[in-house]
């Protein structure tokens, strides 16, 4: 295990390199581009034997990667925000065609108005697409998630998005442990599943009539639900082999006697940890859950962690207009009928807005205040 100081983009690139990707399709976009730059350097230097396909748009980038995957190659791409939106049509194709593609997403706010700053809006916009979505708390998570994503994707034939926030992670240096290549090779044996075969030609993505379409979607959803058992299994094996600290679906922090719990995903989890540590010192019974897998949503794990708490503050760096934060909506829906807790959905840090310890503390205080209207999302940092 080699300790290096790298950005999240480099962590994603190193993860993909260790996974020995064979097809890389890419169209430049900020802040995802450093991962592609690094990967193209590996290819140029002969460290990675991979076909780099340069295309004219993000839509084509994922289409090229889909072609590579259908031919049986381990395929990867990176994008964010507007690029992900332009890809959307192919995002659904990939999921429906059950291709084990892994995509890094350097989360960035969506236009309009134009923004280049971090938030989860782009990932959330693809919440119904049929991709498994893992969120990374720090650069170590980015590397660990990328390697594990290939295992999960190939086990369940379901594509995986590895989310890490633009700039906060993609451009910030952190200490990261990089596993050895031979151990990764053993952990990640290449499982070829070509859908294209010249000796047995078939029409891929043919029209499915009303008689079979529902069945296709049922099977696709079942694979997604089975991922709920695969994700923790793969994380446990990864931790054992590499001495890492991946949390599976969700991680509970200081949850033993917690009465108030903060739920979050992505980089804001690190910030929330600081607040939890501080409040614990003051004697407050507060805990934290880090949602690593947002899709499939870990209903059972979240239920178990929250079964005995009084207050839940859900931090969302995204907004689903007319509904509220995506994570808060999911947690509320899945805790229906359980207990009598107060769940406060908080929207903060949109488009790079402030979401430090001070803002999270404000959210936590509001949750326990009787004056807050819990039926509406609360906005912090206006």
């Amino acid at each position, binding site marked *: 295990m080699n300790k290096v100081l790298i950005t999240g983009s480099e962590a994603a690139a190193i993860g993909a390199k260790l996974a020995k990707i064979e097809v890389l399709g890419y169209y430049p976009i900020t802040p995802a581009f450093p991962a592609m730059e690094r990967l193209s350097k590996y290819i140029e230097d002969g460290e990675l034997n991979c076909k780099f396909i340069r295309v004219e748009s993000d839509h084509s980038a994922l289409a090229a990667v889909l072609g590579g995957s*259908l031919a049986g190659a381990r395929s990867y791409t990176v994008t964010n925000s507007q690029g992900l939106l332009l890809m959307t049509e192919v995002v659904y194709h990939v999921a*429906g*065609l*059950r*291709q084990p593609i892994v995509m890094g997403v350097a989360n960035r706010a969506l236009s309009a108005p134009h923004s280049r700053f971090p938030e989860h809006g782009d990932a959330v916009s693809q919440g119904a697409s049929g991709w498994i979505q893992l969120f990374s708390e720090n650069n170590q998570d980015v590397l660990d998630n990328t390697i594990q994503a290939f295992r999960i994707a190939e086990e369940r*034939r379901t594509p995986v998005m590895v989310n890490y926030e633009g700039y906060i992670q993609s451009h910030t240096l952190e200490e990261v442990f990089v596993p050895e290549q031979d151990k990764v090779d053993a952990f990640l044996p290449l499982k070829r599943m070509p*859908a294209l075969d010249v000796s047995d*030609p*078939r*029409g*891929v*993505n*043919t*029209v*499915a*009539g009303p008689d*079979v379409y529902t*069945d*296709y979607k*049922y*099977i696709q959803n079942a694979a997604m639900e089975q991922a709920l058992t695969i994700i923790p299994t793969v994380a446990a094996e990864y931790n054992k082999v590499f001495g890492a600290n991946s949390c599976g679906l969700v991680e509970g922090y200081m949850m033993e006697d917690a009465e108030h719990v903060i739920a979050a995903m992505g980089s804001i989890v690190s910030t929330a940890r600081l607040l939890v540590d501080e409040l614990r010192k003051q004697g407050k019974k507060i805990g934290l859950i880090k949602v690593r897998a947002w899709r499939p949503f870990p209903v059972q794990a979240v239920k178990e962690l929250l079964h005995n708490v009084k207050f839940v503050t859900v931090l969302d760096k995204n907004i689903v207009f007319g509904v509220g934060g995506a994570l808060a909506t999911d947690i509320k829906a899945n805790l229906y009928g359980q207990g009598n807790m107060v769940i406060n959905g908080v929207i903060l840090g949109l488009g790079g807005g402030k979401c430090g310890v001070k803002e999270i503390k404000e959210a936590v205080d509001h949750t326990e205040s009787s004056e807050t209207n819990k039926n509406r999302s609360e906005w912090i940092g206006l």
Partner: protein
Amino acid sequence: MAVKSLPIVPSGDPGALAEASNYSTWRILRPEITEPDKVNPIVTLYCPDGALTLEESGVALNYKFCKGCGICAKESAGIRMAPEYTGPKGVF
């Protein structure tokens, strides 16, 4: 109900779509060749579904691909459109 057995990657054998689909269920009216001698062979080119073909014995109809649009009956003598369903009115 049991889930149907389907390929993991949604796909089909070459030509499977043309062979398997039965769009004839869309039909409400069906063309019938009433007077073969009067049928103008050019209607084989007017048919949008290729359901009419020119055989040695004359113009032939393939009901598997016919959706019942009625273009052939409009363009040629010797063909008429007849109701596909003959049950009580409003009941198919």
